[in-house]
């Protein structure tokens, strides 16, 4: 028996979410009195793999195979299922992000395992296995019982405080069976920026709305993001207008994020926008309209024109950095 956790790396370095996942998985393993097995797919070196031990992994299964350099959902699902079977995994933990949304549902069918998607806490009980998850885009939560023998949980982003829990983990390499007829997709052109902070991974996000007035007014947002080491985002009207790329749209139909700090500049805070950001730990709103709904969701608010407030904020942040 074991709890299996699927980790993610970016160019050979684990993403922050991987440490959260391992830490979360190890807590569930404690509840079930079993061990935590972390699966890494990709070219990750041993010293990096060992970091998973710092967050509670007992064993690290490393799969390195050039056929897995691109994500094919069906192939990856097969690899995770093979490892889950080999390790007798009763619970599988995956991130609730693009990768997790691509793989967890398939794995659920493959292992006939009930899926708890977007859980944000440890299970309140393991018998029956009861998880707590967001529903109605954060307007409510549900307690969900998973009845199947194997359970799959996807962990909502930034919902779990990870902590160090040093274990000397063993590293084992694994060669999955990869039949050629399993490969049905091919990747062509890739456009990717390296070195940029990922919006869904960022601890701080600076976001602009229609109140920024025009696409050429984004300078202060980008500068504040730079001094705080933050990612940039925007509201839906802004991406619909083409002022910013749709990858930056946060909200109900855009990205769902949960950073430590979310600064909303010139965003009124429609309920659909709040659905994408309401899990943020701290929300700052800057808006000229004192009745804007964003102030109901915010922890701190400034009534004022973002184009005037932001440069002062940049200055004030520079003074403490």
């Amino acid at each position, binding site marked *: 028996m074991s709890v299996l956790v699927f980790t993610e790396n*970016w160019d050979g370095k684990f993403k922050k979410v991987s440490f959260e996942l391992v830490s979360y998985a190890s807590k569930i393993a404690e509840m079930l009195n079993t061990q935590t097995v972390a699966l890494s797919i990709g070219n990750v070196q041993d010293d990096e793999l060992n970091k998973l031990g710092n967050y509670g992994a007992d064993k690290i299964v490393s799969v390195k195979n050039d056929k897995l350099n691109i994500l094919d959902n069906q192939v990856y699902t097969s690899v995770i299922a093979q490892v889950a079977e080999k390790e007798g995994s009763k619970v599988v933990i995956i991130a609730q992000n693009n990768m997790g949304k691509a793989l967890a549902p398939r794995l*659920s069918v493959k292992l006939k395992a009930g899926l708890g998607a977007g859980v944000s806490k440890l299970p309140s009980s393991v018998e029956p296995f009861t998880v707590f998850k967001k529903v109605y885009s954060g307007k409510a939560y549900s307690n969900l019982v998973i009845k199947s023998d194997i359970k799959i949980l996807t962990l909502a982003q930034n919902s779990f405080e990870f902590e160090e829990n040093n274990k000397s983990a063993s590293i084992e390499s694994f060669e999955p069976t990869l039949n050629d007829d399993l490969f049905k997709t091919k990747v062509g052109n890739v456009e990717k920026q390296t070195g940029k902070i990922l919006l869904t991974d960022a601890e701080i996000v600076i976001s602009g709305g229609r109140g920024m007035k025009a696409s050429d007014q984004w300078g202060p947002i980008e500068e504040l993001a730079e001094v705080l080491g933050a990612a940039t985002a925007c509201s839906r009207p802004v991406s619909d207008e083409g002022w910013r790329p749709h990858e930056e749209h946060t909200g109900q139909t855009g990205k769902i994020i949960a950073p430590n700090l979310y600064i909303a500049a010139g965003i009124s805070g429609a*309920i659909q926008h709040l659905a994408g950001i309401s899990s943020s730990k701290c929300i700052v709103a800057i808006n000229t309209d004192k009745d804007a709904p964003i102030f109901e969701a915010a922890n701190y608010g400034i009534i004022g024109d973002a184009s005037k407030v932001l440069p002062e904020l940049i200055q004030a942040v520079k003074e403490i950095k």
Partner: protein
Amino acid sequence: MKILVCLSNVPDTTTKAKFVNDNTALDTTGVQWIINPWDELALTRAIELKSDAANSIENITVITVGGKDSEPTMRKALAIGADDAVRIDAEPKDAYYVAAQIAEYVKSNPFDLIFSGIESADYNGSAVGGMVSEFLNIPSVSAVSSVNIDGGQVKITRDIDGGHEEVSSELPVLAIVQKGIAKEPMIAAMRGIMMARKKPLNVVAPMEVEVLTDVVNFELPQPKPPCKMIDPENVKELVNLLQNEAKVI
């Protein structure tokens, strides 16, 4: 080429969450039911693709698992431009149950391209599309922001960390779509609404499927403390609070 779009019938996204029966069910009094926003974008893209004769799309079918109360939503999809609709007559118990029903239908009524939205606005499971593809043992591509057809080949763009990439796939393929796939959802024209009444809406009996999860109850989020207002002339105070009170910078 035949396209299937999986639809979910969900409460309008501005619905306030209120629960009844010991917090075991949504209070649906006065709730407006809509096509799940991502599914609506998927349907829009399917119709855009069909409108180009070069793509040789013979048919767009929409499918849902739900009771008779989901039929207005299916009629709306027909009015927007789907050619026919299928309703599998069962309460959607969980994502696994829904996906198994849809996959069963597709096994005897094959499609080349299947769309599903990345998430439903009610249970936020992001699960049905991926599950259908695994039941059918066909490839799936997730986080899809664009789908085009070029000489019978389906060209898909998906988001990846820090960018996007082009994916080509054997058919049939299931595309799990998100924002970007279509700019604005298409709106039904009067002519479409009239025609929708005559289009087929087939009701199919469900098969036996084990349900793997049960919702015990719902909870509302804890009320949050009121927003602390800061004088716009004193932005330094905000930085101080973020650093020393919230401890986030």
